[in-house]
């Protein structure tokens, strides 16, 4: 085998996303095709998908996808869940054995709802109750990692190239109105199953191309609010920051983008008075959540998706629209492969969030 330096691996992570504003549910085939075009951007050390609208028959229950290193971890976790939740359904997540994916953990799926009397005693809402429980599993049960825990959505990730990960999870069997995908090239953290993208908490997921230079400052800030970063990848912290800002501080996604990719002071200084005040307030109030370093991210959540670059636009990101469908990707070619004649194709500017949501028709579905 050739050593590092003897062989040139030209890469950088890849991200891709598809969002159907009319709520049309499409199979995972399209997102697999899109991310596969950017094969060379990853190096086989991580791939994954987030899908929304895939569990309509269980849409009122939290869907937990969990990795276990051992049967003991599974038994401990199930005991933990059983005490706090009504488990409506549980099963192994169906996988297809493929040559390119090995060392898989045990992969289980649960549909759960908080036990009513415990939820009431806790004085929390069901989201906070569930989020606290999953953070506790990740933190305290050895060998158990909650991969996703939102309603009517799920994360499918592994070590491997994304198209192989798609085959492994039989991604073509799922139908969702919103999909994100990631091909990984880890630079300074290990490539391992739980450390692949997407990262998620409740229904919020993040796929990320880049590297957060402010990681430790961000981590220390967010851990003060009860989060815990233990998946050894910088992207994890973006997920918790966005959960904190939206769910606990009530910020809109647009405001979140103005916190994590805040404009430079020189840029703020030439805005209108009102805009200047607003942007200055967000920068000052949430200064510890400014994310520096290169990034392009796709944030998935129930009913919507956000694409965002760092303010210097140090990573690539292309957006396109065709009818009611919106596409995002690291490279234009990854959009063209699934939609060769978009109505509009453009590159969002640095720090300029593109946020899409379900239209009236989509919301009814």
């Amino acid at each position, binding site marked *: 085998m050739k050593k590092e330096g003897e062989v040139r691996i030209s890469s950088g992570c890849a991200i891709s996303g598809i969002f159907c504003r009319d709520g049309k549910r499409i199979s995972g085939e399209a997102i697999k095709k899109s991310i596969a075009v950017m094969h060379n951007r990853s190096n086989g050390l991580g791939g994954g998908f987030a899908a929304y609208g895939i569990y309509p028959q269980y849409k009122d229950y939290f869907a937990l996808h969990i990795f276990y290193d051992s049967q003991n971890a599974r038994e401990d976790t199930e005991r933990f869940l059983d005490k706090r939740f009504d488990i409506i359904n549980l099963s192994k997540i169906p996988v297809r054995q493929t040559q390119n994916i090995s060392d898989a953990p045990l992969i289980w799926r649960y549909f759960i709802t908080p036990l009513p009397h415990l939820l009431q005693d806790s004085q929390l809402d069901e989201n906070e109750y569930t989020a606290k429980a999953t953070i506790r599993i990740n933190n305290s049960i050895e060998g158990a990692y909650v991969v996703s825990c939102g309603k009517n959505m799920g994360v499918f990730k592994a070590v491997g190239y994304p198209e192989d990960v798609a085959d492994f999870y039989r991604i073509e069997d799922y139908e969702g109105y919103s999909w994100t995908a990631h091909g990984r090239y880890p630079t300074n953290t290990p490539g391992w199953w739980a450390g692949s993208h997407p990262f998620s908490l409740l229904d919020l997921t993040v796929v990320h191309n880049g590297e957060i230079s402010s990681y430790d400052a961000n981590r220390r800030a967010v851990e003060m609010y009860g989060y815990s970063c233990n998946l050894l990848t910088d992207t994890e912290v973006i997920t918790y920051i966005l959960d904190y800002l939206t769910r606990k501080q009530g910020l809109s996604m647009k405001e979140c983008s103005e916190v994590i990719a805040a404009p430079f002071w020189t840029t703020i200084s030439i805005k209108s008075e009102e805009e200047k005040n607003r942007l200055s307030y967000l920068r000052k109030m949430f200064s510890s959540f400014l994310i520096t370093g290169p990034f392009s991210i796709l944030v998935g959540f129930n009913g919507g998706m956000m694409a965002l670059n760092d303010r210097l*636009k140090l990573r*690539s990101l292309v957006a396109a629209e065709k009818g009611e469908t919106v596409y995002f990707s690291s*490279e234009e070619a990854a959009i063209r492969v699934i939609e060769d004649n978009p109505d509009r194709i453009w*590159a969002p*500017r*640095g720090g300029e969030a593109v946020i899409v949501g379900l239209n009236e028709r989509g919301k009814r579905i």
Partner: protein
Amino acid sequence: MKVIDIRKEGMDEVRKHENENLTITGCLGERYIGCGMRNGTIHVEGTPGNALGSYLDGGTIFVDGNAQDAAADTMNAGLLAIKGSAGDALAYGMRGGRVYVLGDTGYRTGVHMKAYKDNKSILVIGGRTGSFLGEYLAGGIIIVLGLGDEKKDITGYFCGNGMYAGTIYLRTDKVPLNLSEKLIKRNVEEDEKDRILRPIISDFAAAFSIPAKRCLEGSFIAIEADKSKSYSQLYAAV
């Protein structure tokens, strides 16, 4: 003319014929097309991948659609003409030759382009550019026409930051957003327009078969480093 379907015949086949007269069809993100090519003409259909025409050393590449990131990286000579738009970091460290883009370009267009003796980098953009246009510019000419976007800002933020030679011409009367105070902005007189801009822009227009007259309409401004400070202030705005 040789026609190659790149999805079927692959990059190896392209490499074999690169210095001839060639049409490549069906591109979907294939990297390094025309990389280091010395002569020949390539006509590209579809969406070519990153580093298109990087280190180009002669010949012509004509792209029907859009190009992705890092096209014409460190290009030395020849012509790269893109009928659609181009991604980020176009013509980074370009040393000579011509790059024409009819549409828009992304961030960091023409960063650290150079000129030396007979080698003069020329970059013309028909649409608008992202921020950091001509950052650390060391020589050559960048022209942004903003066709169809006459009322908008055509360059984004931090235009020409840190440049110390070369000229950025903009077809607008607006000063770029937050332009560094250490750069000189001047209006382009008719004489300079005729002498320098007309020949280049006519060549650009001819490459895409559009009327040169429209591209030359209206006033131009030029942005340059302040020569009086070239030693005390090597990097103009940093």
